[in-house]
């Protein structure tokens, strides 16, 4: 294995992206909306297409704004259908994102005469190539993806730190939050905006696989290790960082071992996150499989009595 500066940048960018995604991801998991990252990353297609059709070029900013706006719309439509139609949130999410994606496909076909706006490339930004696209920042050549994801992380940190108390309350007891005078509806849309912006920033620069995986897997693993929000955020951040760094290392080490030339770094990062989750699942000191089977806490039907 030959670890270069590029590899450091890739691991670092991956870690920034994983952190940025796992922070709002914790709240999504707590609110039983963990599929939102997946839904948004599919649903932004029409936003990209419209931004392109309006501006006529592939400049980042309009595309970014179009995508983020569609991401927020996904959350709004999901909320409407859930509330007015009185149906399951997952189903509402599925309806919204498949419809928006289909709409996006049709718009893209309309635009395809002019440009290579390929849905495949929308879904797979590639973390391997980030070092080809750099910006100068204070005398340093920094990959643009690192700046974008760092910015997303900073935004998440600021918003979550400022509204920590409110977000915590509305995630665990939205009724109480409303009674106490925080608008849990407003917080919901704020969180969704955060998720949309993070998702778009991340998948545009490093691909959707990392986004979807890091919004769900590290928070889920952290939830197996603690029942408190602050430790959950911290543990989830740790797992996210470890997944990214170890993932890239495994992407370099693993393929030669089993007779292949190379692999996909984002995919390996998701795979590593899955491995870390499995470790937490087995070895969690409070509720891991090991502890449960040795303590005989598994009820006969195989389901765990909810606390």
């Amino acid at each position, binding site marked *: 294995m030959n670890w270069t500066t590029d590899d450091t940048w890739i691991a670092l960018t991956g870690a920034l992206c994983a952190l940025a995604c796992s922070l709002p991801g914790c709240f999504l*998991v707590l609110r*039983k*909306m*963990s*599929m939102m990252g*997946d839904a948004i990353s599919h649903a932004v297609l029409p936003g990209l297409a419209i931004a392109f059709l309006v501006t006529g070029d592939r400049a980042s900013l309009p595309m970014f704004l179009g995508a983020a706006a569609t991401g927020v719309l996904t959350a709004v439509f999901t909320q409407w*259908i859930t509330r*007015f*139609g*009185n*149906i*399951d949130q*997952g*189903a*509402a999410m*599925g*309806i919204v994102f*498949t*419809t928006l*994606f*289909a*709409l996006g*496909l*049709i718009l893209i*076909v309309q635009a395809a005469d002019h440009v290579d706006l390929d849905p495949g490339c929308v879904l797979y930004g590639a973390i391997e190539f980030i070092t080809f696209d750099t910006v100068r920042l204070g005398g340093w050549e920094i990959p643009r993806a690192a700046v974008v994801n760092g910015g997303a992380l900073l935004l998440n940190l600021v918003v979550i730190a400022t509204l920590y108390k409110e977000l915590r309350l509305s995630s665990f007891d939205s009724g109480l939050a409303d009674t106490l005078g925080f608008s849990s509806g407003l917080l919901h849309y704020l969180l969704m905006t955060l998720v949309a912006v993070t998702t778009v920033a991340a998948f545009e620069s490093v691909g959707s*696989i*990392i986004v*979807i*995986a890091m*919004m*769900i897997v590290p928070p*889920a693993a952290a*939830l*197996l290790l603690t029942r408190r929000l602050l430790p959950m955020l911290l543990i989830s951040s740790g797992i996210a960082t470890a997944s990214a760094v170890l993932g890239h290392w495994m*992407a370099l080490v693993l393929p030669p071992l*089993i007779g*292949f*030339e*190379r*692999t*996909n770094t*984002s*995919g*390996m*990062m*998701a*795979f590593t*996150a*899955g491995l870390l*989750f499995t470790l937490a*699942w087995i070895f969690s000191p409070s*509720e891991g*499989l090991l502890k*449960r089977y040795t303590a005989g806490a598994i009820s006969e*039907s*195989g*389901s*765990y009595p*909810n*606390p």
Partner: protein
Amino acid sequence: MPTLHDILSTVLLQSYNTRIVVLGTAMLGLASGITGAFLLLRKRSLMGDALSHATFPGIGIAFAVMVSAGGSGKDLLGLLTGATISGVLGVLCMLAIRNTTRLRDDVAMGFALSVFFGTGAAVYAMVQTKPGAAGLESFIYGKAASMVFSDVVMISVVGILVTGTALLLLKEFMLLCFDEDFAASTGWPVLRLDILLLVLVTAVTVTGLQAVGLILIIAFLIIPPTAARFWTNSLRRMLVLSGAIGAMSGWLGASVSALFANLPAGALIVLTAAAIFLFSMLFGSARGVILKLLDQAKLQRRIGRQHLLRAAYEILETMGQPVSNQPIPRQELLEHRSWSNAELSRLLSQARHEDHIEPGTGADTSLIHLSESGFGEASRITRNHRLWELYLITHAEIAPSHVDRDADLVEHILGAEMVRALEAELKPRPAIPSSPHRIPSRSSSSSAT
């Protein structure tokens, strides 16, 4: 633009290609509509999404295995087997997470989706360097428009198998969907039924993936059942309707795409299904939004009318016994309850339309005169209210000071039968009992009974 002749020949399936695509998507819509209905009821609608992503590593691994065994690697059956195995593994992984941790279905599905998909991307990138790997993805993820006869045969076989199994085990699956814990406690093999149901879903998903592609099969598993849910509260009818909506979206969408050759058929079918969903959500006869709003408005009107007439009667009571129908000062009516001026005006004009108020008095006059029928209705409503209050006090032991509010909560839905039962219960009483409590009013001095 397509001519009328084009439209007719497409809708009537006169071209062979159109016939194949329409038949295939309609069959798939039927099968996935039925399986999706169970997913919706189990709140697992995104299962199709998770599953179709979870098939990804299986395809890459199957390809690698077939290549190292000396084959071409692009054997459809082999790839589909790989996809199915990895899809089933994803499902098992999801069920294991759900059944052995505190994490819920959505997290379990998200885990299976993202980790399997990521692993798939890693595997796919590894096998990419093998000869013949190019186009592997499009080979497995089909497009509705490029469907061929063998696809239709396969969809039909899978569709019939899945539908048949679902119908044979309908009772068991219903129990699983509506009360899993009860099913478990009465000894049904809940876990095995759950796995079987998800295997059916896997079969539909993998077939659909290969025939029509990712986004359409996800939509097919979610949209038709959700649309059907707005029209009925019975599972059997929902299954039929869901299958029909799926088939209809396939047929309509595929027909439209045959007319506009450059638009992707899958996307058009999704949009057709979405349009049907929107229509159902608005106009559905069981849970549609408009119906619900109308019901709510009707109830609000009824409550408003009853409040107004009772207030009028209570004021008339204070004007002298025996109660007779005299003009009531509007100001007194306004002070009797916590109405705003505008609210009272609205209620009065509504009462005017219902002929409960004499013509010539109403929203704007300072004196309100109840009509003959209004006075009758007012005494009936007041009587019902008092009877109900008395019932609550004597039989439900509600304190007289609280009874007004409690009676208010239910009296608007008091049926004639219930009133007769109460009358019998509370005999002998005067025709209109006096209020068991002080009637509160903003001009508090005059309204005690």
